[in-house]
């Protein structure tokens, strides 16, 4: 699908990375404001794709652009990116408000306005009144909502979610899905969402990248993807 240059949020140009046993190659572009589901079998390269965009992995070849800017050599902290992992997103010795506050200032120097923003984000994820709680006293779903609140206050245009609901029950998954849709609407963020579940793809994504063996097998709009019966890898993923 052709797209205008300034319409692209994330672009990987001829990116290659060699892990010895596996070689991965990515050439793709994702449009601004979309939720892109990144999916595929285990070991297909989903997390590596995210790590490349976040800057946790350095490509051996090619370049990575975020919002038209070459970030290939940029350190992870300088990139316009927020990350939420499957777990361990919160520092267990810091209370909820500090964990969110780190998203505004990594030295926890917070002003009155910052504290108001944190309170607003906690309200949005349904955790008002939780400010002084410690992560250990929260459920898995609540901890992930705190992590999303931090992504909200960070206001980075690209948000990377690495299986953020993998450890949650089905009921909690749908609640988290609503929050992600809300996050995209209000922050106009571009969201890469790694997931194993076809339901997440159907419910949340605008488009889909399906990876297999470190390569992009297909990249297309969600509606087209959901109707696929071939190739067999995708049919199996969709349960057909």
């Amino acid at each position, binding site marked *: 699908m052709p797209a205008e240059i300034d319409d692209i949020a994330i672009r990987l140009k001829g990116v290659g990375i060699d892990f010895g046993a596996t070689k991965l190659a990515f050439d793709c572009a994702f449009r601004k404001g979309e939720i892109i589901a990144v999916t595929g079998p285990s070991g297909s390269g989903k997390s590596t794709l995210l790590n490349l965009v976040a800057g946790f992995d350095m490509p051996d070849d090619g370049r990575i652009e975020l919002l038209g800017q070459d970030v290939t050599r940029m350190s992870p902290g300088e990139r316009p990116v927020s990350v939420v992992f499957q777990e361990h997103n919160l520092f267990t*010795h810091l209370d909820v408000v500090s964990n969110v506050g780190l998203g505004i200032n990594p030295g926890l120097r917070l002003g009155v306005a910052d504290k108001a923003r944190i309170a607003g984000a906690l309200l949005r994820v349904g955790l008002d009144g939780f400010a002084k709680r410690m992560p250990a006293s929260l459920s898995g779903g609540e901890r992930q909502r705190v992590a999303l609140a931090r992504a909200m206050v960070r206001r980075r245009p690209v948000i990377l979610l690495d299986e953020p609901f993998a450890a949650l029950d089905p009921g909690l998954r749908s609640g988290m899905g609503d929050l992600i849709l809300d996050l995209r609407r209000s922050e106009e963020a571009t969201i890469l969402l790694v997931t194993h579940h076809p339901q997440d793809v159907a419910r949340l994504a605008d488009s889909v990248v399906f990876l297999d063996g470190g390569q992009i097998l297909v990249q297309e709009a969600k509606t087209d993807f959901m109707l696929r019966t071939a190739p067999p890898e995708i049919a199996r993923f969709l349960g057909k």
Partner: protein
Amino acid sequence: MVFSERRMTIAAGVFCLGGIMLFVGAAAWALLAADVAAVSEGRFFDAYVRRVTRFTLLQAVLSTLISIFLAIPLALALARRPAFPGRIWIVRLLALPLGLPALVAALGLIGIWGRQGVMNTLLANLGLAQPVSIYGLSGILLAHVFFNLPLATRFMLAGLERIPGEYWLIGTNLGMSRLSLFRFVEWPAIRGLIPGVAGLIFMLCATSFTLVLTLGGGPAASTIEVAIYQALRFDFDPPRVIALSMLQIVLTGVLLAMARLLTPPVAEAVTTGRRVIRFDGRNITDKIADALVISLGMIFILLPLAAVLVSGLRADMVRLAADPMVHRALSTSLAIALSSAFFCVLSGLALVAARQTLLQPRRTSPMARGLSSAISGSSALVLLVPPVVLGAGWFLLLRPFGDVAVFAPFVVVAINAMMALPFVYGILDPAMATHSARTGRLSQSLGIGFFNRLRLIDWPGLRRPALMAYSFACALSLGDLGAVALFGSQDMVTLPYLLYSRMGSYRTADAAGLALVLGFVCVILTIIGTPPERKVEGNADAR
């Protein structure tokens, strides 16, 4: 398990428990009940005893503070550099002082920091007139830091490596500075460990005997344990021995009670499965600073070891090997070490088996529960009464029955076995729990009888931990000077005792040769006796 077999197992455990209690109890009774008259004379807490107590606490506090304070930057640097050249060997080196007899280390430290040592020669060449003194407080601190800095570093490194890999990524993604990373990621991981580690180091330093004896250099720098030894062997002043021993028991009791309150540290190797990627400290200044910290730490640990090696190799080994005194010391040492380790492992096996049998039925009687906690508490009892106090008690107890030297071998074997028991218990208990969980029901359902089970199931399954425990107990006994110092005589000379007397008579070359042999054997035995670190999973990272 067959009913009668169950009773046999419990009976064996109770027998061992009784033996331990009797051995410790008799010594304590001898000390407490012997001569209370001296206490009322007001000699109990005379100026000397007060000074010794003050010094014991002072050196322990300082040793602990310095060890912890220096371990923090070293652990941080090592954690930051997972790919530092030779890192695996550096981490192994940190475990080495644990197996080194204190006497050997003392000799190595004198070789480096002594009056004619490498450091003072170096400092003199740099124009510094005042040499570092290895004797007195500074020497004791140096030696305690030599042993405990690596210990503290290992605990802290393990704590840092337990930090979830995501924390480093989140910290980087949030743009945390070096200081913020320390404040929010590293310090919280270390902070929780410090009370436990400090408690352990303080305990080790407060009951340190050999290092203080060899490096104290006079009554001004004496700890309670050394004072007990001197009161017994030089002054023969039983009231003072009793006063000091009671003081030592009270002190260790308070320390043990405090240690109970503190979280015990865990030093296990780490497997997060996920590879840890760190982005901090990638610039050249940080790299140089970390390399400097690691190198200084390694030099501090390696230099005394190298000194033992170099001066040991320079010694006339051929003449030493032909020396009949060395032969006798070697055979005495081996006989004591092998038999004390044997009794130690045997009673360890009996105690653990009895405790696990007692706790096996789902409903345990209060009696069974009491007995099993008495068994697990027996290791604390052994710690409560340090070897020198134990020896002093038996010395006073046996004296009325004739020449103490006659009983010496038995008492030394028993004390050495007791010393090693807490460690042996720690190795055997988890191994036997796993073994019985794996095979217990299966052997029962197959109706395998006692001797067949022992031969076919238990021996193959428990051989490794039992040998490890045996090896470790041997190393502890071989390197021990405390019990032997009290009972040693012309008739009973062990290797450490011979080494100590050669050091005292300035036959330094002989001492160096003996130290090399002793250190080598003990380190090898300790390495055999230490469970291998669990292998770290490679890049099991989901991609």
